[in-house]
């Protein structure tokens, strides 16, 4: 069924901290590794060691420079930006699907593709503004982030490991997983505390995932400049002749 379920109470999703993300791509690689062998894999690569490698990845990490005006001039803030499925509450990728392959789970809000029903029309990828879906050319069906649904409920794993692979792999703990429908959950509190935001709310697909904005930077450069600026008083008349000459030469 590609009609959406009634609004789900449980909204599983990710919170991504743009302040601490260092752009190492560990999330993308761990995701690729898990999902290549997981229930929804494989994630094929075409020409992996050739001139034009091309493959399916559920995570893509962009790196941006954000130019900010400061007192004395401008500075650039480096922001690494992991992009993946946001498991929207009202996703167009689900409603455009003509076959029912693309669906949103009523129990936890995860958006999935049933590869056995997908006809590979790719309309869902066109409907997603976040670029969350990538086409498996080998299999002829669409693939996307599963929020590691085959990990998070997997009772053969230790409880501590029942987290999406990207969250487990992040070396700076920039990725958090939890129920964003529960206002008391650690992720919801984190979002409230850090003013987490949704991407492109103008589309009205109501993303579940949240991004935590970079914290304001201390104006280090400007401080350093103002500290270095005052010149120390030097009475050149007191200097020996050689140094006076040196001072004159260097002051030119």
């Amino acid at each position, binding site marked *: *069924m*590609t*009609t*959406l379920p009634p609004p789900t109470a449980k909204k599983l999703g990710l919170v991504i901290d*743009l302040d601490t993300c260092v*752009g190492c791509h560990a999330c993308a690689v761990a995701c690729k590794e898990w999902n290549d062998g997981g229930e929804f894999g494989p994630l094929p690569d075409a020409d992996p060691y050739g001139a034009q*490698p*091309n*493959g*399916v*990845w559920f995570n*893509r*990490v*962009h*790196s*941006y*420079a*954000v*130019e900010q*005006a400061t007192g004395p001039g401008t500075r650039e*803030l*480096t*922001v690494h*930006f992991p*992009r993946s499925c946001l498991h929207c509450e009202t996703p*167009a990728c689900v*409603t*455009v*699907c*003509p*076959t*029912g*392959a693309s669906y949103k789970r009523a129990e936890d809000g995860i958006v999935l593709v049933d590869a056995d*029903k*997908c*006809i*590979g*029309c*790719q*309309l869902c*990828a*066109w*409907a*997603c*503004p*976040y*670029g969350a879906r*990538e*086409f*498996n*050319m080998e299999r*002829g069906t*669409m693939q996307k982030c599963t929020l590691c649904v085959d990990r998070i409920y997997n009772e053969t794993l230790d409880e501590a490991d029942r987290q999406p692979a990207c969250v487990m792999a992040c070396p700076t703990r920039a990725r958090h997983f939890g129920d964003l429908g529960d206002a008391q959950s650690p992720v919801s509190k984190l979002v409230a505390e850090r003013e987490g*935001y*949704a*991407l*492109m709310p103008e*589309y009205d697909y109501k993303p579940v995932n949240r*991004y935590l*904005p970079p914290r304001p930077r201390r104006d280090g450069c400007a401080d350093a400049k103002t500290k270095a600026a005052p010149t120390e008083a030097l009475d050149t008349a007191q200097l020996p002749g050689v140094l006076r000459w040196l001072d004159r030469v260097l002051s030119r």
Partner: protein
Amino acid sequence: MRPTFSIIAFTVLSGTGYGLWFLLGIVLTLSRMGRDGPPWPSFVVTALLLGLVLVGVGLLSSLGHLGKPARAWRALSQWRSSWLSREGVAAIATFVPAMLLIGAASGAAPAAAARVAAPVLIAGAFATVYCTAHIYASLATIRAWSQPLVVPGYALFGLYGGLLCLWPMVDASPGGRSLETAVAGVAIASALLKVRYWHAIDHQPPVDAGDATGLARFGGVRSFEQPHTEENYLLHEMGFVLARKHARSLRGITLGFGFAAPVALALLALVLPSLRIACAACALSSGLAGLFVERWLFFAEAKHAVTAYYQR
């Protein structure tokens, strides 16, 4: 968006076919042909069959775009939410009145069936093209498509293609009334709509990386490193730039071949009636070629929101 031949052929050919069926439905509903009046002129059967070929080839071509064409039947199930599914249902349902009319015209089905089938054919053909247009018009992520002139455009260009097909057949059939004025009128209306559409999409504000990432409030956003060194599916499918580079000349070709030449040929046929069949045939080939370029541009010029992340 990458202009895929299968989708261009699908929308142009099936649009033209349904346009032709729509016109035939009107002709058969308004006239009393085949019932108590004169027998059906020969062009009606030919035109119904030509419509069948165009629609059939168009729909088969759309299967070429699928990763799993053998599962295409599944696309008929989600008509409650999906315009693509609705299009599939309407497209197949419209075959029923069309086949009934072909049967009635060739004597295989009772003539009375035609009385019901003709208005149903009008509704079915219109509904199918309307749904086809909505597949694209419903995608908010592609600004050039989610705007009000797309649906009237698909309907008008389908009608225009149908009219271009009908014109030589009507002219070749004895006693047929000529369609020069109608062709010229619809061609001019189509050209005006297309020019207004281009004007509208040229003045749409672009989405930039600042809006896409939500970082605009912190300053000007510039991508300094892409997530991957080579093209991926998203850039291959949605990062097509060629058309926007050559938009001016391709739009000129659309207007010239698609609309101006058929108008000139229609006027020539009015002045020199002896040349009218040649004029109609030339207008059909030129007009259809123009519609193909128009549809290629419709896809190729459209920019997908995801390209903002890549600053393309």
